């Protein structure tokens, strides 16, 4: 066998023993994503509905009651209380008893009858920006029929017709979790060797550095692949997120992503002195993955410098690939620019990590 790769098979066998032997690794690798999937899947629902709403009906007419009923029927708002004055409504918002208050002035029915546009005052709780949009949706939709001269807009939502948040978030979540698990497992396993002195024991043996690195990477990338399948299967079972495109294609394109993440793990292991430092640094890589990658908010909303920065993270590109394949049924040609970017990043990271690892051994 080539000298640099010497001992590769023995390292692989040993790593599998470590994984099987250490229940915390397995729990961490399998249960954590499961838990996060369920938590994020349910909690991270941007499709906000049933916003608690207070009504101040100063008109008390059949028309005003009908208006309130129509607001409720949009599903965005749920009336939680009827109050007697605008002041009380403001208080209700401040106390968080309601997020929205709708104030119907006296004379609402009379104006309605006379063909005038009746005015309604709405108070919105701006402290939670997620509330504002659905409330606006509800309030702008119900009353009038469109004016005669307006354009007839027929919206046709492609790919996610029910506009369910999970369809959009779960492929992203799979990418973020994959990165987190891969980075932490690799960095932990190397830092542990350093902490326990076994790295030195390996370095005085004929084991090649490449053999050591590759021997470590193989088992963990395999674990990462199982992880990816696992998350997507769970996403399908729990949240009914179907993969529209080719699953095998997604798995193949995951390879450069996993390699990039493993390289980040190796990199961390050369800096971190112990496992808790490795943990903190893993978190440091996870945060931008969550915030800047387009997982939560579209990257287009990022200010200029951050937008450019976000293109450096491998997860940004893999999320685009994963969403393309899972949600839009994209083929290789459709996601090719992202694939190219991902491969470039992976090559640079692996080269940098290997160089840095060699140096840290000397």
């Amino acid at each position: 066998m080539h000298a640099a790769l010497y001992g590769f098979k023995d390292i692989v066998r040993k790593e599998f023993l470590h994984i099987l032997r250490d229940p915390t690794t397995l729990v961490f690798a399998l249960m954590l994503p499961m838990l996060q999937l369920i938590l994020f899947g349910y909690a991270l629902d941007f499709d906000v509905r049933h916003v608690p709403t207070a009504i101040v009906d100063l008109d008390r007419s059949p028309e005003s009651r009908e208006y309130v009923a129509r607001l409720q029927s949009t599903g965005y708002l749920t009336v939680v209380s009827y109050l007697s004055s605008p002041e009380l409504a403001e208080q209700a918002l401040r106390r968080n008893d309601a997020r929205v208050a709708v104030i119907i002035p006296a004379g609402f029915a009379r104006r309605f009858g006379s063909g005038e546009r009746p005015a309604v005052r709405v108070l919105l709780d701006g402290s939670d920006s997620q509330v504002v949009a659905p409330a606006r949706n509800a309030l702008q939709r119900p009353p009038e029929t469109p004016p005669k001269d307006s354009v007839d807009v027929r919206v046709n939502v492609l790919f996610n017709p029910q506009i369910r948040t999970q369809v959009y978030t779960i492929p992203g979540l799979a990418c973020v979790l994959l990165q987190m698990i891969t980075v932490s497992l690799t960095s932990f396993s190397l830092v542990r060797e350093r902490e326990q002195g076994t790295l030195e024991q390996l370095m005085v043996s004929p084991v090649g550095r490449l053999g050591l690195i590759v021997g470590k990477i193989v088992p963990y990338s395999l674990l990462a692949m199982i992880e990816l399948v696992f998350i997507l299967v769970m996403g399908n079972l729990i949240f009914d997120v179907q993969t529209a495109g080719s699953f095998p294609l997604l798995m193949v394109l995951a390879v450069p992503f996993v390699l990039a993440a493993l390289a980040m793990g190796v990199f961390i292991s050369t800096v971190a002195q112990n496992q808790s430092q490795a943990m903190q640094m893993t978190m440091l890589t996870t945060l931008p993955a969550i915030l800047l990658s387009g997982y939560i908010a579209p990257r287009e909303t990022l200010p200029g410098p951050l937008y450019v920065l976000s293109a450096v993270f491998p997860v940004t590109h893999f999320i685009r690939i994963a969403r393309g394949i899972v949600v839009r049924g994209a083929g290789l040609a459709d996601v090719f620019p992202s694939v190219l970017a991902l491969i470039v990043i992976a090559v640079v990271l692996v080269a940098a990590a290997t160089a840095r690892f060699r140096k840290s051994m000397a």
Partner: protein
Amino acid sequence: MPHSPHAIELHGLTKRFGSFTAVDALSFAVPRGSIFGFLGPNGSGKSTCIRMLCGLLQPTAGTATVNGFDIERESEAVKRSIGYMNQAFSLYRDLTVEENLTFFGGIYGLHGARVKQRKDEVIELVGIRDYLQRRSGQLSGGWKQRLALAAALIHEPEVVFLDEPTAGIDPVARRELWDLLFELAAAGRTLFVTTHYMDEAERCDQIAYIYLSKLMVQGTPGELKALPEVSPAGTRRIAVATARPANALMTLKRQPFALDATLVEAEIHLLLPADTEDETVLRTLRDAGLADVAARPIEPSLEDVFVTLTRRLAHDARSAVRL
């Protein structure tokens, strides 16, 4: 030159980290089949030197050969022919004794029937058969060190480096480990051992003492004790026993006849002019109010050797500064 009489040879081996010289031009040779004691205080450069000899560090200057292989140009060959046992237990704690041995056999190219045979041999040698299925992290300190030794020997290395192999294990385990080392040396292996225990140093065939990154002295324990710096002509050495050795030491150090006085295991080792009688010393102590005093002639111990040489060197360094 694999049949050189020396298993290890150093020629001006030097390692500098920035402006700090950790190992300063070390030159010595280790005879094949010997137990070679590599001694010196912490921070004197022992570990750095071992790390260079094992191929973990590149020397800044000088050369060395291990088993006839150049440590820089033939580091792979060096690695295959040496065993290494660290002071800290550095095997995989979550793997069993047997899995550790299989793994370390494997990375030295032993597989199948060969590794099985070698495992059997080292298991027999260190006597760890009863614990094969135990996770190595759950072994006691002495058994851990035996396992580490077994792993270091699995590929039949000609030279074994042992960096404080007995640090932190109990006296019985320590003695048993040394019995094993003698067995290995008798079988022709070269053992390069660092230790802080003087009784272990006494058992070595050869000793090199490192101080402030430099080789201070090298030789057999007998040769070191006979060094003129340690036992100058016209002097003799006695051990003085008393109930309050610390007080006695203070008293004796003030006497003109005390050429050197050190406390060693509740006795005072005293270097005297050959014509100073024991009775002179004992009388001085009785006059100072110390009872139950006794003296007996002794050979210098290795501790005397190192203390004397270290003091001398520190003294020389101070005089040099004064000039």
